[in-house]
């Protein structure tokens, strides 16, 4: 199931996006390039500020950690030297979480992270911030079984699937750039290098394999659900956006 995305729906922000996938709904807004505080100004590149607001309550150290991760990752995809001495401010508000999110046995920041990354990217696209590449992210969970094989991997599972597969032995979040470079990895649990490597390979296929039709079809059989290339999904979102913006041209 592909994620849903609505772009540029907040009119006061320079760019915005609402992203819904598997019960996670996040609203993202981007302001930029705007004036930067003197203290944070960098002479040769833009400053990036990420704010994450949880669904309930005010931010805690957990949100600060996620913000740090997002900041590090987005810094490598935003073309910061092209807008020096400015600020790009990204605000992500978690709108709703699935009811089962807290009881999956996987750290809630891991299940949320891919969705936050996608929302941030969509909001940046909507704000037309210069980017050097794009980004796609996926969560992979390995349930504890006696025979760890490739087909037991859960690719971007829903909260209910995680709950059913409990106990989860390890959970991995991968983010890949448009060129297929691994930008971010957060893995938690107990696992071997080979399991991690297999998970990384599977994540790469879901995120950015161009000609992954055969592989995806295989996954479809294994998981019994529709495989979706996230890179393709991102392209279709951008295509819709560009078509929408070009509608003055096609109008008669």
């Amino acid at each position, binding site marked *: 199931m592909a994620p849903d995305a609505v772009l540029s729906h907040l009119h006061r922000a320079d760019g915005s996006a609402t992203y819904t996938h598997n019960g996670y709904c996040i609203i993202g807004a981007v302001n930029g390039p705007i004036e930067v505080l003197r203290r944070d100004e960098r002479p040769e590149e833009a400053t990036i500020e990420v704010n994450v607001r949880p669904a309930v309550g005010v931010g805690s150290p957990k949100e600060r*950690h996620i913000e740090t991760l997002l900041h590090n990752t987005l*810094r*490598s995809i935003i073309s910061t030297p092209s807008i020096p001495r400015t600020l790009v401010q990204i605000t992500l508000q978690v709108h709703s979480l699935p009811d089962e999110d807290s009881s999956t046995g996987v750290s809630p920041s891991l299940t949320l992270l891919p969705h936050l990354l996608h929302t941030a990217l969509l909001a940046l696209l909507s704000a037309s911030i210069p980017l050097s590449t794009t980004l796609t992210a996926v969560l992979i969970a390995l349930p504890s079984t006696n025979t760890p094989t490739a087909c037991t991997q859960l690719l971007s599972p829903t909260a209910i699937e995680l709950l059913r597969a409990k106990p989860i032995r390890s959970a991995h979040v991968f983010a890949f750039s448009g060129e297929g470079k691994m930008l971010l990895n957060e893995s938690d649990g107990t696992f071997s290098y080979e399991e*991690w*490597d297999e998970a990384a390979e599977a994540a790469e296929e879901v995120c950015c394999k161009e000609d992954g039709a055969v592989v995806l079809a295989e996954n479809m059989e294994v998981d019994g659900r529709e495989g979706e290339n996230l890179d393709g999904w991102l392209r279709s979102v951008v295509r819709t956006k560009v078509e929408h913006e070009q509608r003055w041209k096609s109008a008669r």
Partner: protein
Amino acid sequence: MAATTAAAAPQDSAHAPALTFPRPIFAAVAPHPFLQAHLAASQPSKTPLRANSRTAHDFRRVGINTGSLTHCNGSAVVRLGNTSAVCGVRAEILHEAHVQGTADFAPSTGNEAEEDPEREREEIESLRLLVPNVELSTGSTPQHIPGNAPSSFAQTLITRVQSLLLSTSLVRLSDLRILYTPPSNLDDPDVEPVPQLKGYWVLYIDIFYISIDGNAFDAAWVAILAALKNSVIPHAFWDEDLETILCSDVPSEAHPLTLRGLPIPSTFAVFEGKRDWNETGEEEEADWVLSDPDAFEESVCRESVCVVVDCTGGNKGTKDGILKRLEKSGGGVVERDAMKGLVKRAVDRWAEVEKATNAKS
């Protein structure tokens, strides 16, 4: 003085414009080229050295001192080069009646609950029995401005420490529970009395940085490990007459914490060299993965990788489930193949740190 420099100037200009800096000024003005010059410029016979005269694979030596704080249940001071952290563990009693949600965990009769780390983690997490905190002392690092709210750096550290404490199930729940077994029933002496849960020990784990010279997380974690290993919890029991929990002051009745495994983190920083420097187009190694970065290297490197391994079982192969955590963010240099090498470096580091932690205990 002015006359001599004026006299010297024409001579110098005859050769080339004299544009040399002393070392510290080069490092301050252009940190990135400075480190690249260190790593790249070297005779082929020698391995390139970093600015701190370590090779790319060298970690700093760990120095551990335990039991230096007298008012703690356990403490440790860890030095990693110029990074030094103090960790103190203090145990306090949490009465079962004072918290909600213990009913879910109340049937603590069997041994099966003790052996399920998944359930233990849930209980420790929901009751918050492990409370880590990080404090940066004034002057520990130039980035830290005293008197402000905890910076996002400190908050990130706390979150990472806490989630690693939980996900590795380092502390056993059986050490934290305070149980009470009622005397056997007089009417029916055959029935085994069921132990009742009366309270918990809550461990407050405070980390205080005296100075930070890079790699704060590794120092914090090793300090926590050493402090927890060093911790002694007094014997607590339920007093039926007073209806409260009492602690015995007999030292021989106190028990040390028995930790589950020994997860050790290794942090790496990825230095991305500027490739367009040499115009010859030669394929040259332009990225370096530096073990245990210091503050200067952390300021220059964007990508960082943290590998947590636990080889307590003696297995060190790629098929063994020794990895406890992998964190990588900030760039795309370290790929799947490179990670294999990093895991190996982390395993080697594990043996080194394990020796250091055991030497003091």
